[in-house]
């Protein structure tokens, strides 16, 4: 059992990186507009299916990895402009309910287009097989996933802290009215921010399709852990979402190894414990979201 420990821990980290990147996308949208995007998982699934269809028609995996999320971003921003935007002025549960409706529709639409059974979506030959890391061998594709997700997170951090637009975005989270009064187009901020969250979901969706399989509900399977990630990391904190995601990934993979029956429930137990000790989550900021 213990010689399984190192690969299992690494698996946990990769899984956790998925949770983290989905949770960061959710948090971006939630922090700025108070919208809990229940359709986040559906956007992931869509990106996965699009990439699958592209590869099936002969495009390269590398092209699909970028193109599929970008198409999903366009879909996402159109939805944000037309359906989510009217709800910003209203109570947040309306947008939760609306996006929930969207996810129900999306699930059935995917079923009509791609069938209800899962489809096989395998990584390109260059990434299949296993790499020998010295102390263990590990599937190359998972290492690739880890690298891509880390790069995505670093790029996001750079964007938010080093670019003018990113700074405006963070300022808007603090005080939207003030940043609007200073002459920033907040509607543009909302649209770009939503698109950014969806782009992260899209990348995660393509990679998750290759690692965890692709079915009409596969994205939604990552949604609930992402919610728990946001709660554990603390609402309002992107850094918290990253730490929370990795933590949950490790906890889940360790319980899968040692107590398989508790693998699903373990993250909720972790969440309860964290909330007992720190009611705002690990890095939750005082004053944000009551």
């Amino acid at each position, binding site marked *: 059992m213990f010689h399984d420990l190192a690969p299992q821990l690494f698996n946990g980290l990769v899984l956790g990186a998925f949770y983290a990147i989905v949770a960061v996308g959710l948090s971006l949208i939630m922090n700025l507009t108070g919208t809990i995007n*229940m359709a986040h998982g559906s956007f992931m699934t869509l990106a996965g299916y699009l990439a699958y269809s592209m590869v099936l028609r002969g495009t390269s995996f590398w092209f699909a990895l970028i193109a599929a999320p970008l198409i999903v971003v366009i879909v996402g921003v159109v939805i944000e402009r037309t359906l989510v935007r009217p709800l910003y002025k209203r109570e947040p549960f309306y947008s939760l309910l609306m996006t929930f*409706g969207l996810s129900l*529709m999306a699930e059935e639409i995917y079923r009509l287009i791609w069938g209800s059974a899962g489809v096989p979506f395998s990584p390109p030959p260059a990434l299949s097989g296993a790499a020998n890391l010295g102390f263990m061998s590990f599937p190359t594709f998972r290492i690739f996933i880890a690298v891509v997700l880390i790069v995505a997170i670093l790029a996001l951090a750079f964007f938010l802290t080093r670019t003018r637009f990113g700074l405006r975005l963070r300022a808007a989270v603090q005080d939207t009215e003030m940043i609007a009064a200073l002459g920033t187009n907040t509607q543009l901020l909302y649209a770009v921010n939503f698109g950014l969250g969806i782009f992260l979901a899209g990348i995660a969706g393509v990679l998750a399709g290759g690692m965890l399989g692709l079915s009409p509900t596969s994205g939604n399977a990552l949604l609930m852990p992402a919610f728990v990630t946001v709660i554990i990391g603390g609402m309002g904190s992107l850094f918290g979402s990253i730490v929370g995601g990795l933590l949950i990934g490790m906890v889940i993979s360790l319980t899968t190894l040692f107590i398989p*029956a508790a693998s699903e429930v373990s993250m909720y137990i972790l969440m309860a414990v964290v909330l007992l000790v720190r009611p705002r989550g690990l890095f939750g900021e005082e004053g944000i979201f009551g």
Partner: protein
Amino acid sequence: MTARFELIVSVIALALLACAPALSPLVHLDISIVSEVLVTALAVMSVNLLLGYTGLPAFGNAAYFGLGAYGAALSVKYFNVDFFGAVLIGVVAALAGGLILGPFLLRRRGIYFGLLSIAFGQVFYFVAYRYTDVTGGEDGMNFPRPPIGLVHAALNEASFYYLVLVMFALSLLAFRTVVRSPFGRTLIAIRQNETRVRYLGLNTDRFIFVALLISATMAGLGGALFGLLINFAYPLELDWHQSGYFVLMMILGGAGTVWGSLVGAIIYVIGKDILSTVIQSQWQILLGALFVACVLGFPRGIVGTVQALRRGRGGGQQFTDDDVNAAFDPAAPVEVGRGR
């Protein structure tokens, strides 16, 4: 809603429901569907108390609903209790769920509350899903419908319906009494401005906790009766999708109204029964579209709209007992517009 209008509506509604076993064959409706409407309405009322009246996004009430159903199912299967015993155990299970989750939930408000409700509610889903030996896992569990203990009377669909109707009517009366009591008024005040309520010296956490327990009890009663109705308990009853459907029904019927829950449940349950046989799988697309349309274009719901129309006719002057749903007026998102 004036008192006389409400009395007339209540009498007509109860008369119709009382005649339902005779009327429903005329429209090719099984009486068990009408029973399902009533037990679902109980769960919708439980959401309404938290979301419609108190303003807390209760997206986890399916957990209490499912606890009620599993409580009834397990007690019948393993302890051979009678009908009322099963209902009682189901309700107690849901109440216990509320007691456990309450302290976690009531520390937070707004979308944080919603997120916590979804996440914690999901625990029960996985427990039911995983502990296959006891709960039957994904396949769910069958159990026979127990008789009423004292008289050893087996229940057919019609007599089961009347039992459900009596419990529903009592619950509706209790619900109406609660939301119009000083306690219910305080919940509405919390929805409108919790900070001010605190300044008045009221411990709002305590009010919310009690509301949560009432809500869990009500959802548990609905769940236990639902389990006994279909003689079956399955994990999806506990899933957050189910919670979402309850919230949809509440919006559809009218959030923050006494009768809205029943109206929403009638439309949803009967509509689902008819449509899902006609169009099968595309039903879910239609349901999703209904969510989107309701939220964007019909946030007051049916009862809410009727009340707004009546209020408009009366000159919009008087403060009526039931216009909590003014809070759901899309034209007035923040100000609730008391005493305009």
